[in-house]
Structures are given as structure tokens and as C-alpha cells.
């Protein structure tokens, strides 16, 4: 054993990138240390330099990066040598190849792209073992299957032969973790290991990492932007902002007594479940330009001047909506059979005028398909969507020609990805005037004032209009997307994961903006998200979707206080809170994802003699259960 016990010590590390426009300092003198078997979290927003630190430790930086100073001392507990400065080694030093994957390994964010699509899981997992230890192929295979079993592959020897695209996201990430652990390294660097996963799968993976970390006594350097994950995993926390450490300490100090204003602000910017009615998120950097009050009044008047529908009742009504996709399964033999996938299965809900319905569910649950069906971007297989207009409830799915064009003005969409939803070859002016051009609403001159009003409404300056989307940040682009959606004075706004691509601080700004606009302009909205805390912040009522079915719908107070469906319960319990008093219970709770529908119990499954039915729990609170079930039992 070597003298000092510290596993990894980063001292005054400086890293910069050579770019065409000059040098960018990504890491400016960062110091921290990791003890053996410890979990250290590096927290920061995108662009803070946290991933660069991870890449520097393993020396896998891109070619245009330079280490300008500082040391990364790695003291391998498995040998007796002194600590070695990894940052000072030659890029081709053999010790580096020995450390990479052998003594320090890495878990990546995107399990799909982090694995090669052309090689089997077994081949890729086993590679690290073969590179660092001499093993016969039979030994390597049995070791690989053993580690696959350990990370929770139901059938390791089958999993060994499979390709990444044949596995679910959760299993892929398990394979990546197996790849990192197979050589029993002293430290694992986990770069946003659960960001790409659904919340229930995230809880499973976090539990798995914690369990394996204890079992092998591996140190983990966890890089994340999610304070909830940090609270549940870390022993020590390093908060980093623009390449500099803002605050560091053990997890107790950080969460109970945050000192630095940045950390305090970061915590205030996260939506949480205990927010009081009317409480606002405090955005990190207050970039919200003052919206001119008269512009808002003018626009609000325009929105309210519209036809409010002839009859009372819901503004938008969705009944028994169903959508099937045909999947062609390719195979070496014959044509393969066509498989029918039911993406949306008997979904019904109503949204009242001015209300916001939150639609929650994991990826693949059919949320986005529902929104596309409402927009009539996809043809529904069955069911109806109707909108309350001056002619009464109009069946949207039957519209065509002129009527469809008129309908399109009333329902608009805000998209998830602000980068790909704006045409990079159009100026903001063109992007915002396009809706007017398509609907032949106004002359170029006439709509100019509207465009100016819009851009100010979303908190941006008029001089932005002549620029192209690439010169704006993610948050600004999302504002432009919102302005575009508002251009036609829609009645219904569909927001499809509008903040999931944004950083916490920007997320707070956009959520506040959406909330304000909705109230000021009286918009009816459908807010789709996988993030329960975000939905809780904006929505009045919440609908939970699982495998194409709407399993529970209730007001948000009812849903959070009294969830009935096992999937809703699991979803609520799997959210990691940035709060040390409400940690996830990895040992006792089995976090079930929608894949584990078998565990739901007979009450919530269809049986041979009875299908599923919406059972009323309370006023406005319905849960999907077997029609033969004992209702009083469910309500209890």
C-alpha cells in the first residue's frame, strides 16, 4: 500500500480549447479529491466544464484541447507505486492505456450512441477485459456473462449475443455499466449516467450503481446537472460554474447550508413538489426583459376577441382515441410478419377553456402521438377529437380543405428541440412572418407590427429579428418557437416537452414565461412532459399515460396526495428529490417501469371476462382498472 490514501487528487487543473475565434478556457484552476470507495458528484450546467474534467482524467480530450496546468494524481490502491500525474504523461504513454478501462473506467450519457451498433453487447463488454487481462475466450465469455447477470440482465448468455438496438434504454445502460465494471476498476467516472433515461429506469439504474459501488468498494465520480440525483448518490459535492468551483463540501453541508449565491440560486430554480399556489421559480440569471405592458394588453385583447365557442363545456375533447402502427419485422427467412403496435389505446380526456392539462408518461408511452393526433398530423385509427367553436363541437378529424386550414390557426405547437425546430437558413423575421404568409393573413407591412409585438412578448429585443437561429442560445430559441406558435393567436397550445432540452436555470425562465402567457392570453394548453415536477408547476390537472393507455387522471393536488394506479405510484416514488430528508429507498422499493405491468395486480389488469374501465375515485379523479374490480377497495 502506498503512503497517502487519496485515490485521485486534481490540483489547480486548467484546460483550454483552441477554436477558430481564439482560445476558450473551459476549466480554470479546479481542485478536488476522491477517496477510495467514495462517491463524488460534480454538478453544473451545460458548458460548465464538468465533462471536460472527466475527459482530462482519462486523457481522452478532443485533439484541439490543451492541458495548460495543474496535476491529476492517481494513486492506484492495487500497486505500491507513488501517485502518478496522469495530466503530465505523454499522450501515448503505456500507463495511460493501462489505466483507461482497467483502473479508471467510464459510464456515458447516451447508451445508444455510446455502444457501437455493429458489435454484440458481449463483444463490447468483454473488450476491456481482453485488453487488460490475458484470458482465454471461454474465460472471458463466462466472466462477461457473470457481470451481465450482476447488472441485472435477465438472460446473460442471450444478452451476450444481442446487438444494442435490440435492447431497451435501461438494459443498454446496464450493459455500459457492466463494461465499466468488468475489470474491477478503482474508480468509475459516470458522465450523466441517467439523464437519457425515464424516471423509473433512472431510479433502477441509480440503485444498481449504489449497490455495485458498495459491493466492489469502487469510487464513483459522478457528473450531473441534476441535484436530485446528487442528493441520492453523493458523499461529496463539487459545484462548478464556467470552469470554476463555486462550492464544495460533503453532501450534508451542500444541501442543508448552501453558502454560495450560485448554489442557492440553482436550488431555487428547480421546480419541486411543495411549491405553494402562485409561487414562482426564481430564474438563475434574471434575463427576463421587462415586457411592455401595453403590448401585452393589446395582444391579450386580440386573443380574447376570438370566438369563445357556442356552447358551454370543454374547449377540447378527446374521445376513445386509438392509433395503430404497422411494424414490418425483417428477417433472413421469408418476408417477416407485420406486427401491429397500438401506440394510443382508447384515450379520452377533456380540457376546459383556459386550463392546462399535463400529460405525463415515459418515452414510448404515446404522449407525443396523442398530440400529433390532436393536431391532425397523424390520422387516428379510431375515436374523435372535437374543438368547441362558434358552430358547437367540431369534429377535428373530419376536417379538410379550408376548414382544416382554419382549424390549424386555432391549435399551435411548441416543440421539444429548439435547435432542430427552427430552420437554420431563415432569419427570425422570416420564421415569425411565415405563419402569416401561409395563412395569407396580412401584408408584409401589416404583420410587421404584430411580429414586433410578439418578439417583445416573449422577452426579446426587436433587433434580434434580422439574425439567424444559430446566434441564439437554447433558451432564446425556445422563446422564438413560442413567439412563432403565438403568431396566429391560437386558442389551444400544445407544448411537447418544451423545457427538457434546456438547463435548469433556463428551464425556470421558460416555464415562468409559459405560465404568464397562458394566464395573460387565456390559452388552453396541453403540456406534455416526462418530468413530474415540471408538470406540477404548470398544470392544473394531470393525466398519466402508460403503454398507450391513460391510466389515471386527476387534479394535481389529488394526484400527488392520493395516487391510485400502481404505475402512478411508482412514477411518483421514483423522482429523486434534491432533499436529503426524502431520499429514494433503493433497498425496499422496487421501481417498476411500464415494462413490469405484470406486477400491477389483478385489479389493474384486464382479465378474460372483463376489460379495463375508468373508475371514478373522486370528483375529477379517474383511474383505469378492471371493470369487475371491487370499487370500494380501490377507493380505500
Amino acid at each position: 500500500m502506498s503512503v497517502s490514501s487519496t485515490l485521485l487528487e486534481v490540483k489547480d487543473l486548467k484546460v483550454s480549447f483552441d477554436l477558430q475565434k481564439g482560445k476558450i478556457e473551459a476549466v480554470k484552476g479546479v481542485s478536488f479529491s476522491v477517496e477510495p470507495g467514495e462517491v463524488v458528484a460534480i454538478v453544473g450546467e451545460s458548458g460548465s466544464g464538468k465533462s471536460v474534467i472527466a475527459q482530462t482524467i482519462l486523457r481522452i480530450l478532443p485533439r484541439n484541447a490543451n492541458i495548460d496546468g495543474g496535476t491529476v494524481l492517481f494513486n492506484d490502491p492495487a500497486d505500491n507505486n507513488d501517485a502518478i500525474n496522469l495530466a503530465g504523461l505523454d499522450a501515448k504513454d503505456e500507463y495511460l492505456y493501462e489505466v483507461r478501462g482497467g483502473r479508471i473506467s467510464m459510464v456515458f450519457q447516451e447508451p445508444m450512441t455510446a455502444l457501437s451498433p455493429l458489435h454484440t453487447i458481449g463483444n463490447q463488454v468483454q473488450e476491456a477485459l481482453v485488453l487488460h487481462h490475458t484470458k482465454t475466450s471461454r474465460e472471458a465469455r463466462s466472466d462477461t456473462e457473470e457481470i451481465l447477470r450482476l447488472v441485472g440482465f435477465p438472460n446473460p448468455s442471450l444478452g451476450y449475443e444481442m446487438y444494442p438496438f435490440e435492447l431497451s434504454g435501461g438494459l443498454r445502460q446496464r450493459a455500459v455499466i457492466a463494461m465499466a465494471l468488468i475489470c474491477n476498476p478503482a474508480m468509475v467516472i459516470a458522465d450523466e449516467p441517467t439523464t437519457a433515461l425515464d424516471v423509473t429506469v433512472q431510479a433502477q439504474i441509480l440503485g444498481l450503481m449504489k449497490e455495485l459501488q458498495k459491493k466492489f468498494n469502487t469510487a464513483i465520480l459522478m457528473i450531473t446537472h441534476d441535484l436530485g440525483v446528487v442528493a441520492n448518490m453523493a458523499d461529496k459535492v463539487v459545484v462548478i460554474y464556467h470552469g470554476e468551483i463555486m462550492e464544495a463540501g460533503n453532501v450534508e453541508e451542500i444541501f442543508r447550508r448552501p453558502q454560495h449565491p450560485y448554489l442557492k440560486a440553482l436550488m431555487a430554480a428547480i421546480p419541486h413538489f411543495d411549491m405553494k399556489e402562485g409561487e414562482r421559480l426564481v430564474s438563475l440569471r434574471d434575463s427576463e426583459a421587462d415586457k411592455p405592458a401595453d403590448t401585452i394588453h393589446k395582444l391579450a385583447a386580440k386573443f380574447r376577441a376570438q370566438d369563445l365557442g357556442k356552447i358551454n363545456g370543454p374547449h377540447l375533447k378527446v374521445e376513445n382515441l386509438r392509433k395503430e402502427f404497422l411494424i414490418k419485422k425483417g428477417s433472413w427467412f421469408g418476408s417477416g410478419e407485420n406486427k401491429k403496435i397500438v401506440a394510443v389505446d382508447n384515450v379520452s380526456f377533456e380540457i376546459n377553456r383556459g386550463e392546462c392539462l399535463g400529460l405525463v408518461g415515459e418515452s414510448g408511452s404515446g404522449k407525443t402521438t396523442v398530440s400529433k393526433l390532436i393536431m391532425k398530423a397523424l390520422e387516428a385509427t379510431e375515436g374523435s377529437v372535437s374543438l368547441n367553436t362558434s358552430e358547437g363541437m367540431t369534429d377535428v378529424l373530419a376536417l379538410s380543405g379550408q376548414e382544416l386550414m382554419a382549424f390549424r390557426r386555432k391549435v399551435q405547437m411548441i416543440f421539444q428541440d429548439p435547435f432542430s425546430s427552427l430552420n437554420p437558413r431563415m432569419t427570425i423575421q422570416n420564421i415569425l412572418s411565415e405563419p402569416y404568409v401561409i395563412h395569407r393573413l396580412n401584408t408584409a407591412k401589416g404583420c410587421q407590427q404584430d411580429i414586433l409585438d410578439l418578439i417583445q412578448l416573449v422577452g426579446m429585443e426587436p433587433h434580434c429579428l434580422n439574425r439567424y437561429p444559430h446566434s441564439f442560445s437554447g433558451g432564446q430559441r425556445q422563446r422564438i418557437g413560442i413567439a412563432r406558435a403565438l403568431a396566429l393567436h391560437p386558442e389551444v397550445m400544445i407544448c411537447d416537452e418544451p423545457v427538457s432540452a434546456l438547463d435548469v436555470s433556463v428551464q425556470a425562465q421558460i416555464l415562468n414565461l409559459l405560465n404568464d402567457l397562458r394566464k395573460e392570453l387565456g390559452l388552453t394548453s396541453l403540456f406534455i412532459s416526462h418530468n413530474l415536477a415540471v408538470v406540477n408547476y404548470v398544470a392544473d390537472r394531470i393525466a398519466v399515460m402508460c403503454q398507450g393507455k391513460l391510466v389515471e387522471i386527476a387534479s394535481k393536488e389529488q394526484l400527488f396526495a392520493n395516487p391510485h394506479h400502481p404505475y402512478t405510484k411508482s412514477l411518483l416514488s421514483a423522482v429523486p428529490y434534491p432533499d436529503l430528508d426524502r431520499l429514494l429507498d433503493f433497498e425496499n422499493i422496487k421501481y417498476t417501469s411500464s415494462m413490469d405491468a405484470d406486477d400491477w395486480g389483478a385489479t389493474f389488469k384486464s382479465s378474460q371476462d372483463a376489460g379495463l374501465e375508468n373508475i371514478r375515485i373522486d370528483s375529477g379523479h379517474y383511474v383505469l382498472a378492471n371493470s369487475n374490480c371491487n370499487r370500494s377497495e380501490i377507493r380505500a
Partner: protein
Amino acid sequence: MVSYIFKRFLYMIPTLVLTSILVFTLIELPPGDYFESYVNELRAAGETVDPKLIEYLRTEYGFDKPIWERYFQWATGMLVGDFGYSFEYELPVREVIGDRLFFTIIVTFVTIIFTWLIAFPIGIYSATHQYSWGDYGLTFLGLLGLAIPNFLLALIMMFLANEWFGTTIGGLVDPEFVGQPLGWAKFVSVLEHLWIPVIVIGTSGTAAMIRRVRANLLDELRKPYVTTARAKGMPEFRGLMKYPFRMSLNFFIADIGGILPTVISGAEIVAIVLSLETTGPILIQALQSQDMYLAGSFLMLLGFLTVIGVLISDIALACLDPRIRLQGGVSR
């Protein structure tokens, strides 16, 4: 796998039938036929032609029959290896093409190998050393090869080869070997002449290939799984070959379908300039003189090779890429 290939073969039948109809219609389209051009040529030379003889020839070769009957005769003939009769050479088409096919295949095959041998290492170097002096230099050379017209390069090379090595101008062998059976001396003579067309035809292809290898590999090098391999401790070159390089091969295999037809048709102009005894010049000549069975059979051969090439690349892609093998398409 067997049934997949079998089905692919079945798909080929309607494709080839359609191609043959198209080819036959195309060569029938221009007004007149070979005999008309022949008579005109003789008249221009001041000779008289016996109309009876022409009439006899027309009947003899079935030109008085309706077009569909002639098509049927031609198409069924091809099935048993009878490609029709070349009027100009007064030989069966098979014999006209057959002799030259050997040289064509040699020239093209060597050219393709030459292209790959040069393009792959340079492409890989350029991609892994992006924006370095080596990358810029090799890119410049490649673009130069792309920009110089082939016929010009052919003339210059021929001149230089004659000045420096005393190689005879034109052809694929020294004149004394023409018509002789292949022996050692003839083989050496072929090699002596071969490198000129190979370099001339190869340069432009190589340059394009380098650019494509470089672009495809650069795309792959940015993918996260490359970082994964590095983080596992994979030595750089082995990692490069196992992951990004193999991924970038897909485009190249999809290309095989396009390579086969060039085996017999490619580089006609260069072949004329260098007076190579390959098949390219024959095609051009046959089209000019409306020697319809020769031209038609030739075009048919191109179509057939294209279909076979696409088949080969499809099978190879399915073998190499599990996503193509195992995943199906989604229909709306």
C-alpha cells in the same frame, strides 16, 4: 438467408425484362436502320447498290417482321447465349465482345485495386489528421487528379512513357504480340502498357474515393462510441479499425453495385485515346453506326451487371450490418 437470396433473384427477373424492353425500344427509336446507314455510306462513296441485295439482307435478318417479334427473338436468344449478329463486323456479337472482354476486365480490375490501395490509406490518414499539412497536401493532390481531364493526362502519360521507357504508343501490347496466344513475353508486354491506363483512369476515381473515405470516417470519428473505445484503453489504431472504420465501410459496399458495370463500359474516351482493345470503343462505334444487336446486347450486359452488383452489395451489407439484417421497416 437462402430464401432471402432466392427472393432477391426472383426480383431480378422483372427488372431485367423491363430493362431489355427499354433497351430494345431505345435502339429502335432513331429513324432508319443499319442498312440504311450502310446504303447512304456507299452512295456517298459514289458506288451503286443493288436494292435487291439490301432487300434480301433485310429479310434474312428479320427486319421485315413486326418489332415485337424481333424483340422476342432477340430476348429469347440471349437466354441461350445468342446475342445476335453484328452487321458491321459480320460476326456474331459474342465473338466481337468476347475477345475484348478479357483486356477490359484486366484493365478495370487492376484499376479498381489501384484505386482502393491508394484511396483507403490516404483517406484514413486525412480523416485522422484533419486540417494538418498532410491532410491539405494530399487533398490538393487528389483534387488535382480530379480536375485534370483524363484524355489530356492520357496523352501526356503516353508521351512520357514513350520518351523514358520506349513503350510503344497506344494499345495494350506491343504490335508484334497482337493476335498471338498469351505467353510470358506477351504478359510482360501487357504489364508494360497496363500502368498507363490504370493511372489515367484511376486518378479521378481515387480522388473522389479519398474524399468520400475521409468524409465518412470523419462523421464516424465524432460519434460517442469512439470515445467509449478509447476510455476502455483500446490502442488508437486497433480502435480505429474495429469501430469507426468498419462503420464507414457501408457506403463503400453500397458502391459495389456501381462498380461492376464500369468493368466493361468504363473509360471509353480514354480507351479511344490510348487505342486500347477494350470494349468501350466498340460500344460507341456500335451506337454510331446503328449496329443494333451489338449495341443492344452491350447495353443489356451493362444492365445485367448492375443488377448483379446491387445484389452483391445488398447481401454484403446484410452480412456486415446487423441493423440491416435484423431490423424491419415501419409503415404508417
